[in-house]
């Protein structure tokens, strides 16, 4: 073996791979093992044959309705969050002092926990909260205001906590698009709307898909706000509440695992659909050429 050969031959194992070791271990212990354990557990029902838990979930209306309730919350919340974050992020794509202030302001709720948001909402939106009192004081609206302990309470809470996340993600996608492209489009006769429609939107589509997925998954797993500002036994009885009840009220861990599996599967379907749609769009560099 000569010297050159020795130099060019790659090492059998790249030592850099060792760096991912801790992460892999972490993933295996805290995600893969519990997942597989739960998956197996869901097929070991307290009574009946191996598929009994799934059968029970989909025949018990109190159980399967939670799936619809959760979708009914998570989908509108995701559409609202992404739908509002997109134009705001687009408007703030240029780096100015103004942009920095607004960004800071919009991002503050991300640092608040859901519990703190729920607490604030109860003070603000409650039947005797500031909003109701102000409206009554100004004689704008005298009727009862019910924005907590129902569907709307949870929706508002999820928008407050989920919007900054969607906004930050989209802002990074928008600012990554070379503004010269829009200027080129302008010289070719595209007005602002057409610049957005033909240049920004197609280049943003992959980012929109990812943002949609992440915001959706976050909203779908709602738990604290569904209990604190929702109606946990009624209109906001989401699927995570069903899982919680199975595990900690009925001590039926197998059933709880089943609910968790169904929840994961439902999220997976939405993510798969959105990512499949993303394939229809261009994915690649978002600058206009060399240099």
């Amino acid at each position, binding site marked *: 073996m000569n010297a050159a050969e020795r130099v060019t031959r790659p090492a059998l194992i790249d030592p850099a791979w060792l760096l991912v070791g801790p992460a892999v271990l972490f993933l295996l212990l805290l995600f893969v093992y519990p997942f597989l354990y739960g998956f197996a557990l869901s097929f070991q029902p307290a009574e009946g044959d191996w598929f009994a838990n799934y059968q029970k979930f989909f025949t018990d209306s109190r159980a399967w309705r939670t799936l619809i309730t959760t979708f009914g919350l998570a989908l509108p919340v995701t559409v609202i969050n992404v739908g509002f974050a997109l134009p705001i992020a687009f408007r703030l794509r240029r780096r100015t002092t103004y942009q920095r202030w607004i960004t800071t302001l919009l991002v503050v709720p991300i640092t608040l926990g859901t519990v703190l948001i729920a607490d604030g909402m109860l003070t603000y939106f409650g039947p005797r909260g500031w909003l109701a009192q102000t409206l009554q004081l100004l004689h704008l609206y005298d009727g009862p205001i019910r924005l907590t302990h129902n569907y709307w309470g949870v929706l508002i809470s999820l928008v407050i906590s989920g919007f900054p996340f969607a906004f930050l993600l989209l802002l990074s996608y928008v600012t990554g698009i*070379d503004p*010269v*492209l829009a*200027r*080129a*489009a*302008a*010289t*070719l*006769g*595209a*007005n602002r709307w*057409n610049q957005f429609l*033909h*240049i920004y939107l*197609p*280049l943003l589509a992959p980012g929109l898909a990812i943002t949609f997925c992440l915001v959706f998954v976050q909203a779908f797993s709602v738990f604290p706000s569904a209990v604190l500002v929702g109606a946990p036994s009624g209109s906001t009885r989401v699927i995570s509440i069903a899982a919680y009840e199975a595990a900690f009220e009925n001590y039926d861990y197998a059933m709880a695992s089943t609910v968790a599996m169904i929840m994961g599967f439902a999220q997976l379907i939405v993510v798969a659909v959105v990512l499949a749609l993303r394939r229809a*769009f*261009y994915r*690649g*560099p*978002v*600058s*206009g*050429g*060399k*240099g």
Partner: protein
Amino acid sequence: MPHDFKQLRLDRVSRRFANPSGAVHTAVDALSATIPRGEFVALLGPSGCGKSTVLNCIAGLLPLSDGAIWLDERRIDVLPPERRGFGMVFQNYALFPHMSVRANVGFGLRMRGTPAAEAARRVAKAFALVQLEGHEDKLPGQLSGGQQQRVAIARAIVIEPPLLLMDEPLSNLDAKLRLEMRGEIRRIHRELGRSTIYVTHDQDEAVSLADRIVVLQDGRVQQIATPQEVYAQPANIDVARFMGYRNVLDVKVEEARSTGVVVSGDGMWLTGVVKQTLAGARAYAAIRPEEITVGASGVNLIEGRIENVEYGGRDSLVDVRTASGLVLHARMPGKPAPGDTVQLTVPPERVLVYPHGSEP
């Protein structure tokens, strides 16, 4: 959108920027120029001289701080870029990465609502003009730099703009391709018969392409003239330096005659011509290396020792040190040997004498 026009007139166009510190920086200061139809104008100047700012102002991508732009009798500086309808070729091409080359070229027509059949015909014509047939269905990322450049040009000309604006379009290409595309751009300009405004910092490019050159420095027009004039008779010492007059001598004015001026400096007496009214006893004498010749003659004799030789094939760029220690740059045939003593001369009409400015 009027596609035919007589002239574009820039009337005291100014553009100021506020620095982050709050100080106001004047990028373009009261630029006036008239560009008739069919003319190829180069905006030439060192980087930061404001030439790209002028182009962006004409395109409508930057608002003016002062002044006006007229297309014949119509004031256009108040219109947004999409209503001016000028074709623009950007330095980094700015091709839409998600659209096929065909869609890129057809974009301007699509925005104008041109009927599909006519659009297809015009796109095909544009492809033929830039000689890119066969690449229509590729994405811009699949093309080479030179091909992307052609797409950018095709995209700008397909809308048949009265004015084609080019912002250093060749600066990202290699030397050989740059020369090729230079010829192409000139050919396309001729075939379209419209006006082109071409921004560059490369005096060779400006001289070879343009009918007229606008030399800019620090946002101010230094000279507007034909390439021959800018090359041979720079209006001031800055333009001279920029146009390749590499020998700028700090001299004393000895005698002003009707035939010229006699100056002295570094132990040499030179006869030259005054290009700009002299003020005071000090002046600059500017000499182009190419115009220094070997051999003794009656006037403007320069003696020195060859120091550094940069061989260039046909001739060499030589540094010659005179007795006083001054280094002159000269072009000499062949490949002279360092250390040799040479006698050089320069015709009096090619020693251009300018007054002292703010800096040497």
